[in-house]
C-alpha cells in the first residue's frame, strides 16, 4: 500500500511520528491539507501530553471497566463459543458537529424513503406495479413475509429504530454500505464503549465538547412508551436466548432501558393477546423490541422448524393487541438488491436524489445490468441478491481480486448467466482510515461507522455518536472488515459546550425506568432457583470433600469406617478418587453458571463475575493431581469463594421475587443436604467420628462447643443441626426462611385458603418446631427429605412451569 507521511505542523509528537496515511484513501484525523483536522486537535494535544506509561495506565482503566461490567465478545468457532476480551480501540473516531449534521440529513432522508418502500411492500405494491421494483425481488424473497400483508395501519409507522453502516470513500463523501433494520444493532455496545472511554480520558472528556449519547436512549425509552400507547401491557425485548451471539447486548439493553427480557417460550397467545408467563401468572405484553429473526417468531405461520418462536404471535400482531418497535417483516428492507433501485425510487418519490448515496449496486436479473457487472468485474463484489446480512458480515460475498484475476472465474460466470435474478454486483468500496494505537504509536486503519436513528414525536433523531469498526489490517476494501479488528467510540464534537444528560437523572416528565416492575418471567425464576440450588449443592459437596481429605491428610486410611461411611452414604458410593469426588461439586457449579448465563438481565455483573471466578478456580484444578495437603488449601479457598458468592446474594441483591427464588433454592438445598447427613447418624452402623463430621459439615463445631459440652452426643447434634432456629446451618432455620420467602410470593397467603406451596412449608415448619430430638428418627428424616423435594416440585409446578 502506497503511503504518505506528512508533517503535521502544530500537533507533532512521538505518537504521530510514524502516522502514515494511504495514498488515494481519506483519513479521519489528517485532512487533505496534511494537517490534523480541527475536530481532532484538542484530543491530539491531550494525547501528546501523556507519557507512554501514562497512556498505558489510562487504557488499562478503560479495559478494567469493560471487564468489570462484563462486556465481552462472544466468538463462535464451529460449535464452540468462547468469550473474548472486548476489542476496544482506545482512540475514538472524532467528527465535527457540522459534518455530523450533514450525515444526519442524508440518513433521515433515507429513513423516510425506507418507510415509504416498506409500506408499499406490505400494502399496495405500487413499486412493483409501476416497474420500479422487479416482482421477483419480493416474490422470491424469504424476508418478505406474506402473512404480514396489509396488517400495519396507516397511522402506525413500520420503522421506529434504524441503523446504518456508512463509510467514507476516496472522494471524501459518505456512502451507505448497509441498511440495518433487524440485524444486530450494537447500540448497547455504543454505551459501553463510551463509558470505557470516559474512564480513559476522565479530565479531558468532561471539558471536551463531546455530545452525550444518553439523551438518545431517553428518546428510545420515550418512543417505546409512546408506542405502547394506552395498552397497559409490558414492554419486552424478545431475544433468541443465551445461545445467540448477541445475547449480551440484548440483556444489556433490557437492563439499561428497563425492559423485560423474554424468549419465545416465555410467551403465550390467548384470545389474540400475547402474555408473558410470570411467577404472578400471565401478564399481557403490548410492545416487543424483537431481536429474534422475523421468520422465526411464529412456527405456526412462518418457519415451522423454529424452536425460538411463539405459536400465535402473528395472530396477536394482526389483531393489533401487540406491536413491534419495527414492524414484523420490515427486515425485507435489508435485501441487498434493493440498493440497486432505491436511488431511482428516491428521485421519483422524493423528487430529489439521495443526499447520501448507497454503494453502487446492480441487480443481475436484468441483462443490461448483468453485462455491466461482467464488464467491470475488476471493481465488483458479487453476492446474493436476497442476502439480508450486512455486507461487512456476509462471508458469501465474492470479491474480485484485480491483481490475480482477469475476469470472473467460471463458477461465478455461470451463476451470473443461469441465476442472475439471485445475484447482485456491488462496486468495491474503499474506506477511510482512522488512528489506532499499536506498539506505542498511532497507525492508520480502515474503518466504517454504525449510526443509529430513533423516531420521535418530532421526527427522526440520530444518536450523536456511534459505533466504529476499525479493521485489523491495512486493506481499505470494505469487505476486509470481516476479518476482524477493533471497535471504537465515535465522538461528535461541538465548538461550544454541549448539554449534559444522563439516564441517571431523568427529566421530570420522562417515563420511569420501571416498565417491568414486578413481572418476573417464570423461566427467569426457574433459572434463579437453580442457581441457588446448584451453588448450595456445590458448597455442601466441597465441605464433604474437604472433610474427607482432611482425614486422609491426618493419616486415616481409605478403608477406615469413617471414610467408607462418607463415600457410601454421603457421596453416593464413589470410589476413593479425588477427581471423581470433585465432580460432585464441579457439575453443580457448571450448572449454576449455565443457569446464570440464561438470565443475563437479572444477574448482576458482580454476581456473574463471582460465579465465573469460582468456575475458573475449579477448571484450573480439574485433572491436576494435587497432594492431600494442597487439597485442603484449595478446597478452603473454593469454599471461601462460594460463601463470598452467597454473601453477595444476601447482602447485595434487591429483595425482588427473583431474589426470593434464588434464596429458596439455597434454603431447600441446604436443608435437604443437612437432612441427608443427620439421617445417617441414627443408623446402628454410624462409625465413630460421624457426629463430629456432621458438626464440621454444618460449620457448627465452635457454636456447638459454646452451647454444649466438648463431646458431641446425638441429641446435641440434632438440636444444633436440625432444630435450632438460630443456626444458619440447621434444617429448621432454612425451612423457616423458606416459609418467609414463600409468604411473599404471589397468591400464596393473600386469600382465606393457603396456596399449595405455603401450606406444605407451614406443615413442615410446624413439624420441625414441635418435634423433640428424641422424635427425630431415620423415618422422620426420610419424610422430611421427601417433603422438601415435594415442596420443590410444588414450587416448580405453581410458579415455574
Amino acid at each position, binding site marked *: 500500500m502506497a503511503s504518505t507521511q506528512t508533517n503535521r505542523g502544530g500537533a507533532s509528537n512521538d505518537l504521530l511520528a510514524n502516522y502514515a496515511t494511504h495514498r488515494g484513501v481519506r483519513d479521519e484525523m489528517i485532512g487533505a491539507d496534511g494537517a490534523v483536522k480541527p475536530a481532532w486537535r484538542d484530543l491530539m494535544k491531550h494525547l501528546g501530553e501523556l507519557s507512554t506509561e501514562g497512556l498505558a495506565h489510562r487504557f488499562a482503566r478503560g479495559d478494567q471497566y469493560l471487564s468489570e461490567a462484563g462486556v465481552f465478545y462472544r466468538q463462535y468457532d464451529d460449535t464452540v463459543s468462547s468469550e473474548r476480551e472486548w476489542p476496544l480501540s482506545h482512540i475514538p473516531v472524532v467528527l465535527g458537529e457540522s459534518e455530523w449534521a450533514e450525515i444526519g440529513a442524508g440518513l433521515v432522508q433515507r429513513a423516510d424513503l425506507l418507510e415509504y418502500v416498506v409500506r408499499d411492500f406490505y400494502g399496495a405494491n405500487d413499486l412493483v406495479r409501476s416497474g420500479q421494483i422487479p*416482482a421477483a425481488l419480493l*416474490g422470491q424473497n424469504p424476508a418478505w413475509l406474506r402473512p404480514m400483508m396489509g396488517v400495519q395501519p396507516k397511522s402506525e409507522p413500520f420503522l421506529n429504530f434504524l441503523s446504518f453502516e456508512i463509510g467514507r470513500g476516496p472522494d471524501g463523501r459518505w456512502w451507505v454500505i448497509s441498511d440495518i433494520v433487524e440485524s444486530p444493532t450494537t447500540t448497547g455496545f455504543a454505551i459501553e464503549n463510551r463509558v470505557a472511554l470516559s474512564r480513559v480520558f476522565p479530565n479531558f472528556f468532561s471539558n471536551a465538547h463531546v455530545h452525550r449519547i444518553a439523551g438518545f436512549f431517553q428518546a428510545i425509552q420515550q418512543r417505546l412508551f409512546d408506542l405502547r400507547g394506552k395498552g397497559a401491557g409490558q414492554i419486552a425485548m424478545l431475544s433468541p436466548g443465551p445461545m445467540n451471539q448477541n445475547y449480551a447486548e440484548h440483556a444489556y439493553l433490557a437492563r439499561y432501558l428497563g425492559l423485560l427480557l423474554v424468549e419465545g417460550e416465555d410467551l403465550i397467545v390467548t384470545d389474540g393477546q400475547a402474555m408473558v408467563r410470570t411467577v404472578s401468572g400471565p401478564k399481557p405484553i403490548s410492545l416487543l423490541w424483537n431481536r429474534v429473526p422475523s421468520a422465526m417468531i411464529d412456527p405456526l405461520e412462518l418457519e415451522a422448524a423454529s424452536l425460538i418462536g411463539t405459536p400465535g404471535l402473528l395472530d396477536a400482531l394482526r389483531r393489533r393487541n401487540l406491536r413491534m418497535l419495527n414492524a414484523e417483516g420490515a427486515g425485507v428492507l435489508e435485501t441487498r438488491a434493493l440498493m440497486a433501485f432505491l436511488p431511482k425510487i428516491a428521485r421519483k418519490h422524493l423528487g430529489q436524489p439521495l443526499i447520501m448515496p448507497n454503494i453502487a449496486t446492480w441487480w443481475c436479473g436484468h441483462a443490461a445490468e448483468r453485462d455491466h457487472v461482467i464488464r467491470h468485474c475488476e471493481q465488483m463484489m458479487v453476492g446474493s441478491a436476497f442476502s439480508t446480512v450486512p455486507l461487512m458480515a456476509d462471508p458469501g460475498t465474492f470479491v474480485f481480486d484485480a491483481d490475480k484475476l482477469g475476469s470472473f472465474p467460471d463458477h461465478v460466470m455461470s451463476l451470473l448467466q443461469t441465476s442472475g435474478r439471485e445475484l447482485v454486483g456491488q462496486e468495491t468500496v474503499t474506506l477511510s482510515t482512522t488512528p489506532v494505537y499499536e506498539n506505542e504509536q498511532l497507525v492508520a486503519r480502515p474503518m466504517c461507522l454504525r449510526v443509529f436513528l430513533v423516531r420521535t414525536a418530532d421526527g427522526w433523531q440520530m444518536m450523536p455518536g456511534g459505533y466504529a469498526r476499525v479493521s485489523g489490517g491495512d486493506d481499505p476494501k470494505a469487505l476486509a472488515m470481516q476479518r476482524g479488528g477493533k471497535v471504537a467510540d465515535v465522538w461528535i464534537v461541538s465548538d461550544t459546550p454541549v448539554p449534559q444528560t444522563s439516564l441517571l437523572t431523568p427529566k421530570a416528565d420522562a417515563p420511569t425506568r420501571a416498565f417491568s416492575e414486578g413481572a418476573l418471567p417464570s423461566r427467569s425464576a426457574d433459572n434463579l432457583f437453580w442457581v441457588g440450588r446448584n451453588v448450595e449443592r456445590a458448597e455442601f459437596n466441597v465441605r464433604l470433600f474437604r472433610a474427607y481429605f482432611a482425614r486422609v491428610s491426618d493419616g486415616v486410611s481409605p478403608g477406615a469406617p469413617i471414610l467408607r461411611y462418607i463415600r457410601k452414604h454421603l457421596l453416593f458410593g464413589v470410589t476413593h478418587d479425588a477427581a471423581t469426588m470433585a465432580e460432585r461439586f464441579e457439575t453443580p457449579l457448571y450448572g449454576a453458571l449455565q443457569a446464570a448465563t440464561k438470565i443475563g438481565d437479572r444477574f448482576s455483573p458482580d454476581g456473574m463475575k463471582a460465579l465465573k471466578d469460582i468456575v475458573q478456580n475449579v477448571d484450573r484444578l480439574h485433572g491436576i493431581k494435587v497432594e492431600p495437603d494442597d487439597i485442603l488449601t484449595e478446597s478452603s479457598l473454593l469454599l471461601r469463594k462460594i460463601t463470598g458468592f452467597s454473601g453477595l446474594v444476601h447482602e447485595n441483591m434487591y429483595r425482588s421475587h427473583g431474589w426470593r427464588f434464588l434464596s429458596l433454592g439455597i434454603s431447600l438445598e441446604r436443608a435437604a443436604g443437612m437432612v441427608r447427613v443427620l439421617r445417617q447418624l441414627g443408623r446402628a452402623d454410624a462409625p465413630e467420628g460421624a457426629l463430629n463430621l456432621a458438626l464440621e459439615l454444618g460449620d457448627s463445631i465452635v457454636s456447638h462447643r459454646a452451647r454444649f459440652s466438648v463431646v458431641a452426643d446425638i441429641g446435641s447434634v440434632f438440636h444444633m443441626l436440625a432444630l435450632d432456629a438460630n443456626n444458619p446451618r440447621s434444617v429448621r432455620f432454612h425451612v423457616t426462611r423458606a416459609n418467609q420467602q414463600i409468604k411473599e410470593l404471589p397468591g400464596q397467603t393473600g386469600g382465606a385458603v393457603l396456596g399449595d406451596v405455603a401450606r406444605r412449608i407451614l406443615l413442615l415448619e410446624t413439624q420441625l418446631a414441635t418435634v423433640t430430638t428424641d422424635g427425630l428418627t431415620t423415618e422422620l428424616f426420610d419424610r422430611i427429605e421427601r417433603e422438601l423435594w415435594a415442596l420443590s416440585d410444588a414450587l416448580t409446578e405453581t410458579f415455574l412451569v
Partner: protein
Amino acid sequence: MEYDIRLTLSHTYHSPAGNGRHVVRVVPRALGGRQRLKLSMLTITPSPSEQFDSVDFFGNQTTTFVHADVHSEMAITMACRIDVQAPAPLLDFPLTAEQLAVELADVREMGPLSPTHFLGPSPRLVANSEISAFARAIRRDGDSVADTVMRLGEALHGIMTFDAMATTVDTNAVDAFRLKRGVCQDYSHVMILALRALGIPAGYVSGYLRTLPPKGGTRLEGADAMHAWVKAWCGAALGWVEYDPTNRCIVGTDHIVVGYGRDYADVSPDIGHLRSAGNQTTSQSVDVKVVT
C-alpha cells in the same frame, strides 16, 4: 359432479398435552366456475377454548383453534358437499420457454395468482442439482411449456413407485427423488422443483380425490388420505395448469382443491404446536363419495 366429502384427523398424545394451538386447512375452496361449496362443517373435539377462521395470503381458508386445557386426544372432522366442474380445457396455445421467460420478466402483479411467488425457493423446496439435471434431460427443444409440464409429469410417474411406507410428511424432496419412492406429496415436490429448474413457475395443490372410480375405471392412488398435485404457470394466456404426477393425469373432476401454495408448508392440512412431553400418534381417514 357432486361429492360428499368426509375427513377425520385424529391425534393421540402419549402423555397429556396442554396449550395446543393448531392451524388447519381442510375445507375445499370455492373456485369461481369450478368448485361450488354447498355446505361444510368443521367439528373439533374436545371443544376448543378459542377458534376462528381466516383467509391466508394464497386465498386458502384456514381455521385456527386452541386447546388451553390438558387433553390426551384430539380429533378434527370435516364434512362438506361440493359441486365440481372440470377446469377449463387446455387451449392449444404453444408458448416456448423463451417466450415464457420474457413474460415472467414483465410480471408486475403481487397477488396470490402471480407466478412470481412460484419460482422458488420456498419453505420446503430449495433448488437441487440432481432434480435440475433430471428436468433438463427430459425437456425437448421445441416443446411448448404445457408440453414440458406433461412430459415431465409422465417421466416422473415412470421412474417413481407409489409407496406409502417409504417416506413421511417430513421427507425432503431430494431424498424421495433418490429413493424413487413416495406418496403424492413427494411426487409433487419433486415435480415442482423440476419445473422451477426449467424456469416454469410451479406450486403445490392440496385436496381430495374421488374414492371409488366410475364403473370400469381404475381406483386412483392416494384416495384414502388427503391428496396433492402440482400447478404450473404456462404463460398469461393459458394461465395455471394442474397436473397430478401420482396418477399421471391432467386434473379434472376427480380432484377437489383445498389449498394452493408454494409447497406443502403453505397448505399443510394441520400444523400444530403444543406442550407435551411424549410422542403422538396421528391417523387420517378420507371418504369422497359421489352424490347420486
